[in-house]
């Protein structure tokens, strides 16, 4: 395995995949994990399998920037097949800040809404996010984290550019459901494209993507 400079793009792209996966796994309305620093990176080319990146990440929660948490990740981009998602293994060292109270409060607030929540353009053109919509924005990070993880290759680097539209859908079970249209910015091609993602969330069960659709051809 060869050492990679963290400032060079191959390591940065692998880190973005790890972050997408992590946000999907551990993100929620009260937690927004962000990469503070990519400490180190190595790459191993495995014959007939693919390229595997070993990463050391320093993470922070945007809602609690005084602390950082370390994380190691392995990102394996499979050879050849462009339609197969990278395999990600990660280990967070130590505890992430508990979001139990914030989660419960958000859950109760949304469940008690008379009309289903609808919002658009988060953030707006000027970068504003009304405080009440920040949890919705963070859930969009979880939703787009899934899309980013599933659709990344060594030649892409995705970020959530904006939540174009979000609509809550009331359910008869205990999950919250949000139908998102998210704009993803792909750094290499510079395209900004819409993805439709349906996200389910529950305080104990966490986030799950139940449906996901990419841009139509010619978009």
């Amino acid at each position, binding site marked *: 395995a060869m050492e990679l400079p963290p*400032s060079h793009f191959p390591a940065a792209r692998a880190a973005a995949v790890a972050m997408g996966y992590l946000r999907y796994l551990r993100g929620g309305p009260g937690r*927004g994990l*962000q990469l503070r620093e990519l400490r180190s990176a190595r790459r191993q080319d495995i014959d007939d399998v693919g390229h595997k990146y070993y990463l050391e990440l320093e993470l922070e929660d*945007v809602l609690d920037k005084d602390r950082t948490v370390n994380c190691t990740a392995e990102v394996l981009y499979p050879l050849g097949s462009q339609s197969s998602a990278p395999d990600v293994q990660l280990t967070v060292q130590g505890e992430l800040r508990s979001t139990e109270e914030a989660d419960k409060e958000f859950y109760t607030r949304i469940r008690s809404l008379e009309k289903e929540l609808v919002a658009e353009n988060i*953030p*707006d053109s*000027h*970068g504003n996010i009304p405080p009440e919509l920040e949890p919705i924005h963070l859930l969009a990070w979880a939703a787009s984290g899934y899309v980013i993880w599933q659709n990344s290759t060594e030649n892409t680097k995705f970020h959530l550019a904006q939540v174009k539209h979000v609509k809550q859908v009331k359910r008869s079970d205990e999950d919250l459901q949000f139908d998102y249209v998210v704009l993803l910015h792909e*750094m290499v091609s510079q395209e900004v494209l819409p993805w439709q993602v349906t996200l389910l969330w529950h305080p104990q069960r966490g986030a799950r993507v139940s449906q996901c659709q990419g841009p139509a051809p010619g978009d």
Partner: protein
Amino acid sequence: PANMKLLLIFSALLGASLCLETFVGHQVLRIKTKNEEEVKQLQLLESLEHLELDFWINPSAPALPVDVRIPAASVQSVKAFLESQGIEYSILIEDLQDVLDKERQDMARSAQRQRGTGFDFGAYHTLDDINEELDHLASEYSFVEKIQIGESYEKRPLYVLKFSTGGSQRPAIWLDAGIHSREWVTQASALWIANKIASDYGTDDSITSLLDKMDLFLLPVANPDGFVYTHTTNRMWRKTRSKIPGSVCVGVDPNRNWDAGFGGPGASNNPCSESYHGPSANSEVEVKSVVDFIKNHGNFKAFLTLHSYSQLLMYPYGYKCTRPDDYAELESLGRAAANSIRSLYGTTFQVGTICKTIYQASGGSIDWSYDNGIKYSFAFELRDTGRYGFLLPASQILPAAKETWLGLQRIMEHVRDKSS
């Protein structure tokens, strides 16, 4: 009534800002009752709580008008009711939210005027407002001049601020922003930097010694057509707005259009692509105008360009992955500039060639300037690293501008020392 209305608007504003209540689609009607019977009908309406009607003037006597705010969802049914009863009404306010938004803006502007602070560098502005501020700077400082170096595709002037304290054809520094129109923090930062340099000349040693030896040319909005488009139509627009023969798609990536490895890897030949290089090098008038200006001047020593986002400080090359001849000096200067940036708020910028740091990309501006003899060619990618991306909150404009300025200054000081 006038005071009441003001009070109600105020509490609506307060409510809107505190609780995210909006008044989109709410209408205010003025109802003219003709007789007691009609007054009673309105009082009946008033009692229907589910309509959530908000009477600004309650129905009391036939001679007095009744003003009522109606939530969007109830507008049609209330109007239908009034019409079916033959009760006359007129629309005082079509959409209350519009009124509130304008009020908020007016209040902010008048507060600003009262403070005597003029242009708000910590906010995003329209092209017209930016051009107005360029005029203001040029009129306020004798060594600042606004010149036009060309026109955009849609015929908007390309305005450059020239900072010159004298001499004739002094060695010069080029700085541009906004070549990719959606990167709003760059145009905003360029304005702040222009004001900083203008206002601190004479008191700041570094700026004073810089402008005593060199001229600075600053193009704050390198892609005005795209910029206007981000305000009016699509906040995520990147390219120019030129029509492309034979395609339904519009626009060329102005940072793939320079004559440096043009058409090579890292640029697309598909007009619908965000990185479309265009039909030929310098096909975009926005690019050609700068090229001609710099060539005709003949004495530029540095070419600096602002982009966002990613927090990177890069030097050539982008079109090829080999190191430039001046690699050691540029790497060292880049690191020093990144350290200066970090010294203010701890913001870290990665340093390196374009090709290694971000991607291989042909037809870029700093590759052109470097290959044309302008050694100190750097491209900055400003805040942030993806949390807000292009939609950086306005509250971060000033911090971004200030830290970026420290990096630029570090480079400019080096250029000044090497050019004398």
